[in-house]
């Protein structure tokens, strides 16, 4: 296991690359989910406001 993590002494280079890849891909998914939630809650709020006006 330690041998695998050491990558023949090049651990810094190898794991920097895979770490950056994993962080970027995960961050994009998180950002996209957050964006969807933000849009849905804003549109939901707008719609409730509009529906309330119609009922008055």
């Amino acid at each position, binding site marked *: 296991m330690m041998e695998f993590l050491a990558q023949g002494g*090049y651990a810094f280079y190898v794991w920097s*690359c895979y770490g950056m890849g994993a962080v970027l891909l995960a961050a994009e998914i998180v950002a996209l989910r957050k964006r969807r939630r933000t849009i*849905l809650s804003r549109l939901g709020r707008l719609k409730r406001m509009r529906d309330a006006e119609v009922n008055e």
Partner: protein
Amino acid sequence: MKRHWFHFAAPSTFYHLAGRLTPWFLGLALVTGVVALYWGFFETPDRLGGSNPQKEYYRIIFVHVASAWMSMWLYIVVAAWSAIGLVFNTRLSYMMAISVAPTGALFTFLALFTGSFWGKPSWGTWWDWDPRLTSELVLFFLYVGYLALHSAIDDARRADRAAALLAIVGLVTVPIIFWSINCPDPNQCAALHQRSSMSDIDGNILFGMLGLTFAFWMYSFATSFMRVRSIILERETDTAWVAEVIDREAPR
């Protein structure tokens, strides 16, 4: 047949189709990514070559080549959707173009980053103005320029058309990147990138590279579908079908 295809070109239909497909693409990306990386790390030799071997750091190849391929391929996809949008004036085509571009920019950055971290142990430098490095950097600026131009224009349809034109003109960089390693005279242009061909690569390494490329490809489907769904909701806010979606999916 014609009617069948244009059926999915309607944002209301595509919104639901993309929503159903996204989890499948994400799952496929995860599974193939894990298999490809397992193969790349455990079924390959630790060192390559003879007198001046590539040591363990060559394992960066899997993420590096896969992201570099995706950076070029996704740019072609952006330009293709832009061209389809300009020719047929279909709203969804433009939305797809702008949905794919951020993921393409991400992979371009990742290709440059991993290239840098491979270049340091292998060539002794983080960066050099080698033809391929330089043209890939230009591609990154094109992605950024495309996204910046699109967001700088308030009217969505004008932004779509202007950015589409930029994407199509920028397409000229893709063949330049592709052939930039074929430096005819090493004295004229010092290319650090070696020539490579599919037939020279060890089968296990090739399997890892192609596997991770497939995983990135599925990931790109998933993220562009997720993004296009948000864009559809923003642009079609005042339609009856979006009102139904809000009733069903919006948090109270």
